[in-house]
């Protein structure tokens, strides 16, 4: 098997062109993240379809327009999965860069992208990153594109890191009065640890005997589902979660807080803002890619 990206991006590049304002559309699941695109921007879409799956390399290649659900179903047949939220297309969730409730165990979305074929603001096809799980060949532009809400280049096809599916997985509720931070220290690498100020829920994955052991040791009770996550999110240092009050669901050990009302993100420094301006200027001097979107208001 040839483990390079082999999706032909030339027609996508031609579609993107080099002149007028364009916006790249996935499944519109998180369409408003980063702000609304100026009306009049021409819509384009990345190619879809799975190119290859290599379980012995723990990698998969697909078009950025492939839905995460389709990818996950195909990977399941190989006993693999990908640590992307099932919210729309692969390109969409990478461009937005938000993780789902499994971040504690699976890490951030940015660690999933190994290589991407992209179309630049100049309408040219370029490659960022590399096809292998380990790679330090040049600057890591793949990470820069994750969470850039399509303002630096459009993802065309990607090589992603996969991971084996767990043998067993379940949600549990901790006994009333459990300190979520104490549980965080006691459990061995839970996939998720949610806390609403009163109750703590844990998602555990692994060998069934180990799950039984954790249940017995920590007094956990199996539950069908985790609590529903309120719609808005706030990113905090995980140590600051102790001070939360009101209605919330917090991801212990991560620092994401899910809220009913939108919350103001911490502002970035003038130095960081200046870097953002210079990077945008360097990658898209005419400001034609997703005009109106801004990763700083992501």
């Amino acid at each position, binding site marked *: 098997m040839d483990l390079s990206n082999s999706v032909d991006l030339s027609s996508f590049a031609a579609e993107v062109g080099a002149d007028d304002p364009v916006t790249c559309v996935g499944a519109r699941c998180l369409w408003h993240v980063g702000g609304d695109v100026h009306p009049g921007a021409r819509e384009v879409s990345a190619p879809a379809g799975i190119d290859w799956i290599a*379980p012995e*390399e723990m990698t998969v290649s697909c078009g950025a327009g492939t839905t995460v659900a389709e990818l996950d179903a195909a990977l399941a047949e190989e*006993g693999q999965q990908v640590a992307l939220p099932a919210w729309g297309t692969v390109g969409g969730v990478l461009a937005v*860069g938000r993780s789902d409730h499994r*971040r504690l165990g699976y*890490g*951030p979305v*940015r*660690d999933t992208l190994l290589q991407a074929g992209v179309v*630049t603001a100049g309408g*040219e096809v*370029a*490659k*960022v990153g*590399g*096809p*292998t799980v*380990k*790679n*330090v*060949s*040049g*600057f*890591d*532009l793949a*990470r820069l594109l*994750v*969470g850039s809400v399509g303002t630096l*280049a459009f993802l065309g096809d990607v090589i992603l890191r996969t*991971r*084996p599916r767990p043998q067993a997985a379940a949600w549990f509720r901790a006994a009333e009065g459990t300190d979520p*931070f104490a549980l965080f220290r006691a459990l*061995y*690498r839970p996939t998720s640890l949610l806390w609403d100020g009163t109750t703590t829920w844990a998602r555990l994955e*692994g*060998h*069934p*005997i*180990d799950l039984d*052991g*954790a249940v017995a040791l920590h007094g956990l009770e199996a539950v069908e589902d985790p609590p529903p996550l309120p719609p808005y999110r706030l*990113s905090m*240092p*995980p*140590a600051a979660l*102790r001070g939360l009050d009101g209605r919330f669901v917090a*991801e212990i050990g991560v*620092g*994401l807080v899910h809220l009913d009302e939108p919350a103001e993100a911490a*502002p*970035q*420094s003038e*130095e960081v803002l200046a*870097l953002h301006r*210079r*990077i945008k200027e*360097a*990658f898209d001097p005419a400001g034609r890619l997703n005009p109106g979107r801004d*990763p700083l208001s*992501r």
Partner: protein
Amino acid sequence: MTTEVAPAALVDELRTALGRAHVRTGATELNLYRRDGSNIEGRSSVVAFPTTTEEVQACVLAARRHGVPFVARGSGTGLAGGAVPLDGALVIVTTKMNRVLSIDLDARQAWVEPGVLNADLSRFLASDGVHYAPDPSSQQSCSVGGNVATNAGGPHCLSEGVTAMHVLAAEVVLPDGSIAVLGGEDPEPAGLDLRGVFVGGEGMLGIATRICVRLTQNPPVVRTLLLDFERVEDGAATVSAIIASGLVPAALEMMDAPVTRAVEAYVHAGFPTDAAAILIVELDGLPAAVEAGVERVGEIGRAHGARQVRLAADEAERALIWKGRKTAFGAIARIKPNYYLHDTVVPRARLVEVLSRVYEIAARHELIVMNVFHAGDGNLHPLLVFDKREPGVMERVHAAGDEIVRVSVAAGGVLSGEHGIGLEKRDLMPLLFSPVDLDLQARLRDAFDPDGLANPDKVLPAGSRCGDLQQVPAGAWI
């Protein structure tokens, strides 16, 4: 060899900011800091040893005022020439910034200064049940700041990931002398992942002065197996089969016969000296998963012709196996005085084919080659062993190395898995990247450092910018 002289005014400014003792221009220091762990030598004109962020900033601002390039350097163990100063650069050594600033176990985060040694950090954390996961073989002497610059790896990066996955934020003196925190303690800081591109930036995007690292929970159970094979192919097939079976070992290392024999004579780790290849497989986690994994690795190994599957009986035996793996480079010094360590990655499924090419290339250049590497990641480390006093040998070493990199890339691999590009592989970047790809990387560099004074002429070959026709005199310093 020419000697660059630093502008007297620059030296004066640095001495005013850092104190006399922390700014050196003597021949001893200039010679010491003209090279790193690679075989490449450069030229420095002044060496500074700042102790605070503000002093690093003062160094950068002074260098800018005088138009002198500057190079950040940690312990200098890098193998790709990334910390080699060119053209009389100011070397900014971070080894005196070596404090662990804070540890937060609720968040599993720690802030450290860049000069903290990798292994010291994990030793410091030992009683807290956590460790710092990246573990390059140089971990006893390499610094966390250097690990960030090179996006360092190590055997345990198979399951835990490389440095980029363990660095949450960095306070950085940017090339224009301003100070910024890239990334954050929180999981989704607003804006671009500037932290992500800074890691692995090889000192060309700024100098880290404080680093927030992620701490990794120690596994409750660790088991280490040693498998040996009569054929290298069988060992490599075992590697692929283990990964394809859905196991992700904590580490999966291979040593070929020449290395195994050298190590065994040196540390007496009990390695079978008649094997063509040995595999070290480490599994960690909760007990049932680990025991099932041990069972499975044994089955897979035996199905692929393993002669022996040995499970380390206790911590002492486990430590001895790892001592054998990590002292391989010392053992090799008994065979020939010099070695050149390469670093490429290939798809696991191509390991056998690429290894056989590596042996063939070395034989053709009349060099001894030994292989000890991170097989689980497909991360090859061919060691060319030689005596540099032998006339003409360096030409053969470089020619063989070049061929090894080309063969790896042609097999669908990459230029470097964990050492970086630096000077060593700069001019090989076009093997992997098109002019458009390189132009994008050059744009990033320019956005961080429009004046090009931070560690110039590394990573990106001359002509990377579209329309950039200036030529750097290739090989002038090598």
